[in-house]
């Protein structure tokens, strides 16, 4: 306990290295440093160094066994004329624009329903959460089967309704919606975060509104939605970042086809980045692309945080 207090004291002190520390304080300091070291060394080696290196490489032509060739801003300029770069950016924006809000809305609605006091509530919750435990690779492969145009469950069901199901996997119009569908199936964690937010909505407010004659919709619209708005913002930003970096599902979803198929409709930013760097061996260009993606995500996040002031309500 005494040691704890001493460490606490240390944090209050100004960082004056000349100040004389007692032997014990010095010892505590180094113990602290030692505890930090594994993380810090790991961070320097595996996060900071690659980050810095990719920044340097982005201004060069990188050949692993030859010295770097400086090309200045050429890699960044190439992006403007690279058709595939724009295709991949558009595909990614499509996912951000459509997948994020759709997933957000449906997971909120699911959470509201799962929050209703009905018999078997916990069973429903488990059922909705289960898909998110399934590993990405497994669930993606599963959906390849569900969406198989010949023998898939989806088109068989649609067939019973008299609808001639589309070629989910091989039609460029349907490939991205298929991926959105696949993503919605695994939105359990978003639902859970919303559920916890819903539990925090003060019952007193809801009761007061009910006494004032507010109906179900009004209570949802004027109390629940504003009260969970910080959660919405959190889900929105993490969802957006996830979609900008969308990779694994698209990588697996192509089945036996090439990356990005059909017709490059699933060539997302990260997929193209991977292809450029690790298949075409243009590490410099891929590094530049990575930094552009970083800037895009940064700008979008800042914008969203700025705009969020208008619709986010922080209680307390």
């Amino acid at each position, binding site marked *: 306990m005494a040691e704890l207090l001493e460490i606490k004291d240390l944090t209050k002190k100004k960082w004056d290295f000349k100040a004389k520390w007692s032997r014990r304080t010095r010892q505590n300091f180094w113990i602290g440093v030692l505890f930090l070291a594994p993380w810090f060394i790991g961070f320097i080696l595996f996060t900071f160094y690659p980050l810095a290196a990719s920044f340097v490489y982005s201004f060069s032509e990188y050949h692993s066994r030859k010295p770097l060739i400086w090309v200045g801003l050429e890699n960044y300029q190439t992006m403007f004329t690279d058709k595939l770069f724009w295709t991949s950016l558009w595909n990614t924006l499509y996912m951000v624009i459509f997948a994020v809000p759709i997933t957000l809305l449906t997971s909120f609605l699911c959470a509201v329903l799962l929050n209703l006091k009905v018999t078997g509530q916990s069973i429903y919750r488990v059922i909705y959460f289960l898909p998110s435990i399934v590993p990405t690779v497994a669930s993606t492969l599963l959906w390849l089967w569900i969406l198989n145009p010949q023998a898939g469950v989806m088109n068989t069901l649609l067939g019973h309704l008299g609808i001639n199901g589309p070629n989910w996997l091989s039609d460029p119009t349907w490939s991205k919606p298929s991926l959105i569908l696949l993503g919605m199936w695994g939105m359990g964690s978003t639902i859970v975060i919303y559920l916890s937010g819903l539990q925090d909505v003060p019952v007193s407010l809801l009761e007061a509104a009910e006494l004032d004659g507010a109906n179900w919709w009004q209570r949802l619209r004027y109390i629940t939605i504003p009260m969970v708005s910080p959660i919405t913002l959190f889900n929105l930003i993490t969802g957006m970042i996830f979609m900008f970096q969308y990779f694994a599902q698209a990588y697996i979803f192509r089945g*036996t086809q090439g990356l*990005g198929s*059909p*017709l*490059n409709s699933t060539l997302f930013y990260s997929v193209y980045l991977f292809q450029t760097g690790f298949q075409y061996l243009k590490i410099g260009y891929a590094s530049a692309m990575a930094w552009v993606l970083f800037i895009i995500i940064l700008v979008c996040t800042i914008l969203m945080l700025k705009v969020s002031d208008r619709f986010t309500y922080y209680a307390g």
Partner: protein
Amino acid sequence: MKNNLFKVLTLIVLTSMLLTGCGGQPAAAPAPKELNVWITWGDNPQQLQELFDKYGKVNNIKVIVTAPVEDDKVLPALTGSEPPDILILGGGDLVKSYAKEGLVVELSDAIKTGGIDLSDIFDAPLSQCKDGDKILCLPWGTDIYALYWNKDLFEAAGLDPNTPPETLEQMAEYADKLTKVGGDGKLEQIGFIPDQAWGHTDLYSHMFGGFWYNNDGTQVTANSQPMIDALTWQQQFFKKYGFDNVLAFSTGFGDQYMSPDYPFYTGKLAMMVDGEWQTGPNFIAKFKPELNYGVAPLPPPANHPESANSGMVAGTVAVIPANAQNQDASAKLLAWMMSPEIVAEEMCFNANLPTSKKAAQDKCFTDNPKFKIFVDLMGSPGSSYVVTTPISLEFNDAYSLAEEKILHTGADPKTELDQLQNDFAPKLEEALK
């Protein structure tokens, strides 16, 4: 007491640093007596390990086979500090780009050191490893494609079950007769899908007398007449019954290549272009042993009779990484791998074509008359090989996109190929500088 606590903590932290690999490099260990072989394919890693164990036994060295290695792991290994001693790739597509980056060695020295007899290797597969006078890889096994047809379906359609089509044009007519459309407009059986499972434009364009590069890989010839002809010929199989209709039929079977549900086995696909392994023990014999089928070289188009009895070779190649620790040891292991007995044993097991002329004499390859067709095709003077360049991978992806547009959406072959030509002619020029 305090001091002890300090020591214990230091110990814990240092141990955790070691465990997380942050403690810096351990002292350099003496060179271990082992060789690493990486193979980017391999349905049966155990068999591959047993094969290389033979080398280990004779030479008193441990050979560790890793198969299948994910493609993504190859590049870090070639650029890192722990490369394999030999790398075996599924195809030659990447070899020239690796060579351009200085990641693999030119093999002349290794061939001398190991005493590899180049004259024993069939010309077509060896050519895919050559860059001018340089030899960048050695072909271990190889593949070639031919026409398979279902004799029962031929008979049912009123065709002679023992006579395959004689020209590509006739093949299209046969395909028409072999296609059945149901009452709802959906396909029930189809004569031929030119890109079922994967595309074969290399073979089709070869039949029309060309390829997407010139012979020495110095020029892109994507919009040459043979390429346009090859894609126009393929497109008709989709056009006739509706692009979406054929595509739905075809993708429905996409993932069932190695399964009894493959459409050629179930009689839903009457003709297919496929490789020699289908005649071996692991495909038709395993999934549909009673299938009554025939094999023949793909017929040539009527205006290119000289292409008869030929094919397009591509397949497994071995390279030595430039950063491999002991180049002599790699060379010796490569020489052993390339010896006729070992080539025969491995390729016999997988029902792939042996690249060694001596190995090809083995009963395993000559006893099965259907397999023999492929061996003969490989040795045929008309057969060619898939030309590669340092931009092969990037070109292949762009080409696949163009092919997809042409075959699956009905885009005009000439327009798409012109575009491809314009995009890639300068890229190749740049890459070859």
